[in-house]
């Protein structure tokens, strides 16, 4: 695909005076599953919104030598940056095939829009296999299970031929098996692409992250491998709640986080 990396430098996002993201820098490279974690309100999703042009931001976000900030949303997408949303947003009334066909459309000339689809694009078949949705080809997306909808979104990014996949809480609401399947899927597709995952789920992060950036109150708290981040006293402080900003969700994972620190890493 590409060797270009996603490099975010000194990203600032302000919402009428409130600083949601205040000077965040990180990078993501092909071949790794990059995680962005942090308590609620840390600015994780806002970072993705800024990179994809949904929120106005200052600083710099570059893919290779292309500056993304200030580029219209659909043009950023055409540079090869795809994203998913916290709530699965697929086209409910259209079938899985139609959903994917629309996603694949940007590589086709516009005149093809006036014609009827004949057959299934090879890229769509590959994405269906990759995400295990082959059997659901003719199913309306609205009646897929929650997990399948998330996979369909990832499949849409695959047929879109995205070089960068920005995934916003892809395993929220999934069963344990579905999480494992999703994590393995992310590791597979990350081989040739940049995968950046925003997550709350610490267990999922520990199992599948290559590198992690911890955000807290709009700033980077810690950065490194899973083991490095977990050993960082500042991270422990935030997640133990002494900084006064820990959410109940973060509190719930505290025992796991502390326990994991004393265990050798699985990989």
């Amino acid at each position, binding site marked *: 695909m590409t060797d270009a990396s996603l490099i975010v430098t000194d990203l600032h996002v302000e919402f009428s005076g409130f600083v949601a993201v205040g000077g965040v820098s990180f990078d993501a490279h092909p071949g790794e599953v990059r995680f962005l974690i942090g308590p609620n309100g840390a600015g994780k999703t806002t970072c993705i919104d800024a990179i994809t042009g949904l929120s106005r931001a200052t600083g710099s976000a570059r893919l290779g030598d292309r500056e993304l900030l200030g580029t219209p949303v*659909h043009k950023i997408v055409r540079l090869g940056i795809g994203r998913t949303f916290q709530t699965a*947003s697929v086209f409910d009334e*259209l079938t899985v095939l139609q*959903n994917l066909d*629309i*996603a694949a459309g940007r590589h086709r000339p516009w005149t093809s*829009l006036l014609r*009827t689809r004949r057959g299934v694009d090879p890229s769509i078949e590959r994405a269906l296999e990759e995400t295990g949705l082959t059997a659901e080809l003719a199913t309306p997306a609205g009646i897929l299970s929650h997990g399948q909808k998330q996979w369909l979104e990832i499949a849409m990014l695959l047929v879109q031929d995205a070089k960068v996949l920005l995934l916003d809480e892809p395993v929220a609401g999934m069963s344990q098996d579905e999480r494992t399947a999703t994590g393995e899927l992310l590791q597979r597709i990350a081989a040739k692409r940049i995968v950046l995952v925003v997550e709350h789920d610490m267990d999922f992060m520990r199992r599948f992250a290559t590198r992690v950036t911890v955000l807290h109150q709009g700033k980077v708290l810690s950065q490194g491998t899973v083991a490095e981040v977990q050993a960082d006293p500042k991270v422990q402080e935030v997640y133990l709640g002494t900084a006064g900003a820990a959410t109940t969700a973060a509190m719930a994972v505290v025992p796991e986080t502390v326990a994991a620190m004393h265990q050798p890493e699985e990989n």
Partner: protein
Amino acid sequence: MTKLKPWISLGGIGVFAFLLLGVAPLVLTDHWINNLGKYCCWAIVAVGIGLAWGRGGMLVMGQGVFFALGAYAMAMHLTLETAGDRIPGFMVLYDPLAPLPAFWEPFRSAGFTLLAIVLLPVIVSGILGYALFKRRVKGAYFAILSQALAVALATLISSTIRQTGGDTGLSDFKYFFGFVLNDPANKLLVYLIAAGLLVVCLLAVWQLYRSRFGELLVATRDAEERVRFLGYDPANVKLVAFVASALMASIGGAMFVPIVGIITPAEIGAAASILMIAGVALGGRASLFGPALGAMAVGWGQSSLGSTWPDGWTYILGLLFIVVILFLPNGLSSLPARFAAARRSPAPPPPTPAAAAAELEGVRS
């Protein structure tokens, strides 16, 4: 089934065309042929509304604007054709020495008139749609704005009586591109053109709906942001559907004039524009035949009940509208599917109030 379905629809259009073009002229009186022609004009507008509103999610409450563009372009040409070398009668009434307004002059040419009927709505809706959709104006704001434009245009025409005929409108057309309009054979010809154009519009949206564009349009209607994040500009997708619907409204308006013989601001204002929507909602806005059949039904009610029992007709139409929105949000054309579903599962769960409210919201926006 899914492979067959578009061809069933095509067969439906064939049957519809046969009834309109083959059977109707044989069995109906001249009077009813003329009425049916009028319904066809409204149906052409309705097919466009179905495209923009049903499939594209744009509640076009001001199709009267584009209807007026086509209708007045045609009416000006027919007025000039009738007047010959003289100044049109109504202008002489106010000022016997008044020159023909400059913007009337080109409409002497039949070619220019036909071109204007096609290009005027495309240009106006193109500029309007571009400005609105790029700024992401949608939902109720779009509906109110389009409605306001229809009101504004009707008021403008009313207030420029010397140039446009004002509230009295333009009427008394004797010729239609060289044909004497009083001749029943020529009236039939005009009807056949209108019915033929309706069939052509149905064929056009049939192809649009089964094309990739049709799928993209539905996707844009249901999740505009998601479409944007797939690399499309949803504004362009909506613009195409909006311009196509404006063109159809203009064609409907243009054929309305020789068939009905008069065009006034009352035919294009707020009430008329809403009536155009009513038929679409009744028939089923997202279906292929729903808008056309619904518009014809409302047109028939308008001219039969509306003339014998005008007070009651308004209530009946209002009641019909409420019942359809509450119980059949997808219009009468969703009835067969409902019956089929009811047969499969004998006791369907009654819709919850929340779901009904959501559906109502969907109709409104």
